[in-house]
């Protein structure tokens, strides 16, 4: 078997036919970054139009296409695939496995993504324009009243869903079967734990989303009336199905981010993660609760009061395990020996801003108060604090943290720090004022607004341009590192880093752990 220890194939076929978890992880990461730039470009158009009251750059219909595509591309194209890429790269290396359990499916689950997004993006050039019904695509706006391109949107969602399900099955199979001997569940790094739980969430809810879009397809083309009251259906049914997918989806996005932060904070605190076991249980509790809170997105649809109360109480409960996590991270830092390299800065940024997003989440859970917050910019501010400062910041931290291991080269630390501060400040200039305009009464998804919202909107737009520009710096830093960064040779790139991935050579060889590593039999975390 010795002569099978080969390196990558040459040329394009390396990428097209690869079954190597590192190559596939790399492709996922680059693809998601491309989508991040595309979705960001849509956001820039939105913020440019909202810079001043009045219609300046685009027409209202096109504005709605931009908000819709921005949401879809960021959620399904940028954030989700980026964490799948990270899982591909890191999970085998963290559990001492040579590769993912199902390498050919791994190739396929990546390669169906680009055509899926090509199909989605192509709707922009179709008659009637791209989907313009929001990333939540409520019926009947997305069925009876949608542009013909909705059919392409439906197929694109199906493809992305298939990709996610395959990716998740692969992760579950890998974690359950490929752990090195002695790597018990309670010794797995937290990133592996959060991804394992996330993968179960994905397998559970992606088919529900597929069901929702299939019902739409039937309503549009085959004369059914699932979501049309005129035919005996119910438009609110759509929202129940969508959010039964959509709320777990929010945790699908944030749980791997929790995992990343739980790896990085101990490394730069030079101190073990506080409360490992409680972190695992809190993650599982959040995942369970995510299935029974979906209708808190629907407080104003006219649910019976008993339903409102149930969903309000269940939603408030999420604050408990989430609080446990935040407290554990801070206790990890407490009395450590902290240093503030770029990955740690992004994690601290995450901790501060995600906590603010958590607080506004708690406020939003209060049903009667939500009557005032619902569908305003307050909600927009809230979910960008958790999605951008939560998921995107932690993903950025992950890239800086593991890039030296991946590439064998160190990124430019000063440039990384500038990237952090510009991102952090730009982000807050963008989204903090949105709390104010939301509370003051500005609805979301409007292309033009009343004059009293003008100042904060201009500020928000300026912040968005700053935040957007800072990502160019990030791209430059990553490319410069790969091309000409200072070489690193230590296996353990960061002095406080723990875990099997730091026991392999730097840069990580094409194949790692062909022979399972020996695992220290003493309990790793307790």
């Amino acid at each position, binding site marked *: 078997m010795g002569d099978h220890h080969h390196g990558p194939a040459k040329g394009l076929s390396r990428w097209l036919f690869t079954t190597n978890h590192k190559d596939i992880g790399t492709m996922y990461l680059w693809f998601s970054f491309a989508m991040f730039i595309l979705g960001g470009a849509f956001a820039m158009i939105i913020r440019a139009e909202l810079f001043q009251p009045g219609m300046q750059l685009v027409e209202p219909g096109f504005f709605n296409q931009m908000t819709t595509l921005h949401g879809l591309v960021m959620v399904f194209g940028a954030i989700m695939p980026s964490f799948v890429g990270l899982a591909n790269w890191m999970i085998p290396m963290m559990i001492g496995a040579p590769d993912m359990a199902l390498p050919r499916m791994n190739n396929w689950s990546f390669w169906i993504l680009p055509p899926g997004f090509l199909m989605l993006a192509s709707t922009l050039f179709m008659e009637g324009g791209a989907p313009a019904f929001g990333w939540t695509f409520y019926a009947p706006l997305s069925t009876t009243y949608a542009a013909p391109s909705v059919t392409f949107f439906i197929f694109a969602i199906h493809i992305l869903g298939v990709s996610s399900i395959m990716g998740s099955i692969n992760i579950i199979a890998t974690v359950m079967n490929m752990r090195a001997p002695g790597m018990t569940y309670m010794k797995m790094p937290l990133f592996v734990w959060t991804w394992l739980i996330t993968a179960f969430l994905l397998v559970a809810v992606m088919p529900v989303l597929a069901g929702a879009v299939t019902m739409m397809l039937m309503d549009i083309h085959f004369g059914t009336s699932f979501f049309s009251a005129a035919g005996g259906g119910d438009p609110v049914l759509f929202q129940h199905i969508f959010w039964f997918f959509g709320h777990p989806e929010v945790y699908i996005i944030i749980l791997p981010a929790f995992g990343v932060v739980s790896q990085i904070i101990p490394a730069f605190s030079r101190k073990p993660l506080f409360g490992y076991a409680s972190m695992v249980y809190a993650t599982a509790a959040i995942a369970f609760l995510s299935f029974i809170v979906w209708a808190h997105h629907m407080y104003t649809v006219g649910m019976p009061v008993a339903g409102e109360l149930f969903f309000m109480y269940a939603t408030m409960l999420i604050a408990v395990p989430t609080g446990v996590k935040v407290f554990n991270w801070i206790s990890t830092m407490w009395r*450590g020996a902290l240093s503030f390299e770029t990955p740690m800065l992004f994690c601290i940024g995450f901790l501060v801003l995600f906590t*603010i997003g958590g607080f506004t989440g708690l406020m939003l859970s209060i049903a009667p108060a939500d009557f005032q917050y619902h569908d305003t910019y307050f909600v927009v501010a809230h979910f960008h604090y958790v999605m951008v400062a939560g998921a995107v910041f932690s993903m950025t931290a992950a890239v800086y943290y593991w890039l030296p291991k991946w590439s064998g080269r160190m990124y430019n630390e000063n440039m990384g720090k500038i990237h952090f501060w510009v991102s952090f400040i730009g982000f807050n200039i963008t989204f903090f004022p949105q709390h104010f305009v939301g509370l003051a009464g500005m609805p979301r998804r409007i292309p033009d607004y009343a004059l*009293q919202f003008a100042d904060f909107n201009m500020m928000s737009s300026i912040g968005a341009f700053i935040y957007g520009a800072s990502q160019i710096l990030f791209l430059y830093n990553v490319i410069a590192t790969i091309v000409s960064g200072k070489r690193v040779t230590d296996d353990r790139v960061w002095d406080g880093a723990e875990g099997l991935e730091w026991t392999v050579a730097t840069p990580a060889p094409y194949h790692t752990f062909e022979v399972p590593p020996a695992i220290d039999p003493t309990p790793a975390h307790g």
Partner: protein
Amino acid sequence: MSFGNIIRALAGPVLAFASAAVFGQGNQVNMAKGVTEVGAEIYDLHMLILWICVVIGVGVFSVMFYSIIYHRKSRGHEPAQFHESTKVEIAWTVVPFLILIGMAVPATSTLLEAYNTDDAEIDILVTGYQWKWKYEYLDENGENVSFFSNLSTPQSEIYNSQTKGENYLLEVDEPVVIPVDTKVRFLLTANDVIHSWWVPEIAVKKDAIPGFINEAWTKVPEQGIYRGQCTELCGAYHGFMPVEVHAVSREEYDAWLAAKRADKVAQAAAASQALSLDELMAKGEAVYNAQCMACHGMNGEGGVGKAIAGSPVALGDIGRHLDVGIKGVAGTAMQAFGGQMSDVDMAAVITYQRNAFGNNTGDIVQPSDVVNHKKG
């Protein structure tokens, strides 16, 4: 955009942090306190939870920043190695839980209050249309009064060729009028897609869903004008369907309702009169701008809807043209306007479409033609 404005925009929120009082009236940073009892309760609940979050946040962040400042490697701090404590974990599970119970109690009572629609004196059926609201005052004797409420901000302000007025995008041609100190029940539904009817100052937000009827209520203690907007994405002009509520004294309300009823009779009478081409064109232009322009374009060039200029419908058979206007086109955004505008308005706008934008057919459609067409 002057540099000064940009500086002002940046400086504003910085001041907001220091003190909301420094602020000009233009920049509201908090929820409207509202004029109703429920509104005030919601505001108090909002502030209570906000302050609880602020206190917890200050505590959590203080610990974190203390650690960031004093537990630095660069200060030579040696890391401790503790990494678990069951007692602490139990404490920070139980304490937040108790705080949550403290929040749930007032939240529940406010919610029950907001849901209690009993004993309403006036029922108003609110129907969402793309992109306007219809209000129908339900009357026990069947003498319902109904009208549409359209955005009255002119296109010239939206497209920046004219200075924007004070109530830009928050003004309508016909507001919904309610009496003060009276429990008014709103029954909400929609004609096409889902809309949501929101007026922040009376703290009512409820979705208007086609095929279903939702309930909400208010009892406004102060006379005044309260403005709001649609808050559920409902298509291209979602941002252009405001709500304007006028709360007036009981006497004014009664007089207004009586005038509305008289109007209805007068309109029926007007339908039997014949108008000149000029009169119809003048009226038709106004109706077109309010009702048709959003989809069919300022010059009939089309947009969401088909072009009117040179259209086979506008140049062809009058009966077919009336059909489209009155019954709409199934499966498209073209609504049935027969029930939405008076017969006079319908006659005027059809005449206008047949003679404007280069469609010089010379056809005159009289209100009586519309009445006859509706009869079949």
